[in-house]
């Protein structure tokens, strides 16, 4: 197995035993990127090779001096391009920010810097995170490594595609559950507030969380441990200590109570996906978990609440892009009003404009109570559904998506394509969820989603670990061809 295919924990073991150097590893991953990036197009920015290698050499020096280094040291990684990186272009895959160079690092980038990972690039996404296929990127669509004619999912599709194609050992992104499912990798959306949003150039403040995209569950625990924690610069950040997530990975789920939300299985969706998920559930039962059906009665209203909240927040958050302080600016305009209008009209893509207009409509007088207030009240009911379920059950299990990756150009209009049917509820309720591969349907990966109560990441990770280690599903790799495997 090549170095670039390995996981963080495998590579860390090799690094500290001096079987390999971080320089060698970084060169190997960069060579892999050279080899496949033209096909996959995961990246919108690639770090200069010399700079990446210099970072790796710094870690090698530490190791050779006998200094102790953490589990992420020397590991090549990428950020989704909505995570601010000091001195490095951060675009949100939008024309609006095509030349924006942040003067500061996001909290998570600071943390990864402290952990001494090797930064190798920024990955593609739907413009400002609006979309579910990475096709609304201003630059180009990213392709699914399992079949280059398919989308990688979205909005954080580049991060998942890069990890699946072994162009990065891990990545950080927001809105990464459905891309992880489509690309056959692991991703976690932590509890809202568990990871600071400082420096995340998002569009939905109350829904988005940054999380890890990794090759397995152990890596996911290691990365989450590095980026979680309270940040005084983010007032929505949660106080409290961060557990050593990796220490909870015992693989023992005997006696655990797992609920299957019956409303999630009532929908018409790909029967083979359903089978793959139900056989994963069966495996967990064989490992000693008690599995039962549970009801989340407000499920039919979740997407409605989400559409309203996401649009309303986007219209408000994206109001800051007016061409004055940073970002795209239209020159030669007669007055400030024209500056605002032409800058925004030319700087935003169609999916973003549609969402801003929709959100402005929801927040306009006469509509705000009908839609926005109603959505926030619905959110309370959705959250209470989960609270009630978690009184009886430790975790809930569902598919990550109702189907597998779809062809490029077929569902570019994100409006109601249903991809987010199961990944949106944890965002609306603010609870943590993981997606991990649980099978292949017609050569394409299927994601298993495990949700837990707020701040129960360790429980989710352990259940995912148990399934991954003992459920018998092998680590799967894409073929990077047009036909799938």
């Amino acid at each position, binding site marked *: 197995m090549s170095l670039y295919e390995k996981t963080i924990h495998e590579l860390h073991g090799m690094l500290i035993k001096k079987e390999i150097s971080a320089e060698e590893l970084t060169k190997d991953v960069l060579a892999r990127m050279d080899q496949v990036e033209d096909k996959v197009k995961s990246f919108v920015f690639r770090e200069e090779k010399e700079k990446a290698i210099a970072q790796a050499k710094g870690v090698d020096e530490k190791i050779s001096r006998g200094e102790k280094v953490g589990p992420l040291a020397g590991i090549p990684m990428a950020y989704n391009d909505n995570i601010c990186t000091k001195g490095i272009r951060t675009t949100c895959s939008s024309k609006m920010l095509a030349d924006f160079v942040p*003067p500061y690092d996001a909290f998570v980038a600071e943390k990864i810097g402290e952990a001494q990972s090797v930064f190798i690039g920024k990955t593609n996404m739907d413009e400002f995170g609006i979309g579910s296929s990475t096709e609304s990127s201003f630059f180009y669509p990213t392709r699914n490594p399992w079949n280059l004619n398919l989308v990688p999912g979205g909005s954080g599709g580049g991060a998942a595609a890069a990890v699946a194609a072994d162009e990065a050992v891990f990545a950080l992104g927001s809105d990464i559950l459905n891309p992880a499912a489509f690309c056959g990798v692991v991703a976690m959306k932590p509890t809202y*507030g568990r990871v600071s949003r400082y420096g995340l150039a998002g569009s939905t403040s109350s829904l988005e969380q940054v999380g890890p995209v990794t090759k397995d569950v152990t890596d996911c625990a290691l990365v989450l441990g590095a980026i979680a924690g309270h940040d005084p610069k983010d007032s929505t950040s949660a106080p409290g200590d961060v557990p050593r997530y990796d220490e909870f990975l015992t693989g023992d789920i005997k006696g655990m109570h797992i609920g299957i939300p019956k409303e999630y299985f009532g929908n018409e969706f790909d029967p083979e996906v359903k089978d793959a998920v139900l056989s994963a559930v069966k495996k967990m039962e064989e490992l000693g978990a008690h599995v039962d059906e549970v009801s989340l009665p407000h499920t039919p209203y979740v997407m409605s609440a989400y559409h*309203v909240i996401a649009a309303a927040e986007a219209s408000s958050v994206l109001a800051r892009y007016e061409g004055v302080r940073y970002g795209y*600016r239209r020159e030669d305009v*007669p007055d400030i009003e024209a500056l605002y209008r032409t800058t*925004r009209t030319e700087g935003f893509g169609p999916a973003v404009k549609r969402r801003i*207009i929709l959100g*402005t409509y929801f927040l306009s007088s006469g509509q705000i109570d009908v839609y926005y207030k109603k959505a926030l009240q*619905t959110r309370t009911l959705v959250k209470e559904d989960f609270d009630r379920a978690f009184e009886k059950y430790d975790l809930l299990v569902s598919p990550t998506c109702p189907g597998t990756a779809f062809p490029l150009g077929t569902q570019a209009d994100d409006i109601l394509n249903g991809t987010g049917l199961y990944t949106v509820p944890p965002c609306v309720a603010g609870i943590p969820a993981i997606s991990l591969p649980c099978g292949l349907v017609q050569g394409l990966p299927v994601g298993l989603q495990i949700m837990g109560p707020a701040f129960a990441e360790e429980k989710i990770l352990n259940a995912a670990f148990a399934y991954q280690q003992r459920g018998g599903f092998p680590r799967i790799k894409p073929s990077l061809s047009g036909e799938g495997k």
Partner: protein
Amino acid sequence: MAVTIKDVEKTAFLARIDLSEEEKNKFTEEIKIILDHVENFVDLNTENIPPTINILPLYNVMRDDITRPSLDKNAVFQNTSHEEDGMFKVPKIL
């Protein structure tokens, strides 16, 4: 609820976005689809249900009122070519 081209025009004006005739028609149709979908919760009984803005029980997060270093001015202005005497320059306002 029927949304009209006029509503979309008015809303786009408020959002400081200009739309072509084609975009106006397209967005009106698309917004209709979303509103039809969202309609389903208008009948949901939410009487006496408080709204949830943030899932964490955090209220009035305060910090001590002490001076702290802010970002370097040069770093902040590097993202605009319209700076003069340490200020952002804009076209005429009145």
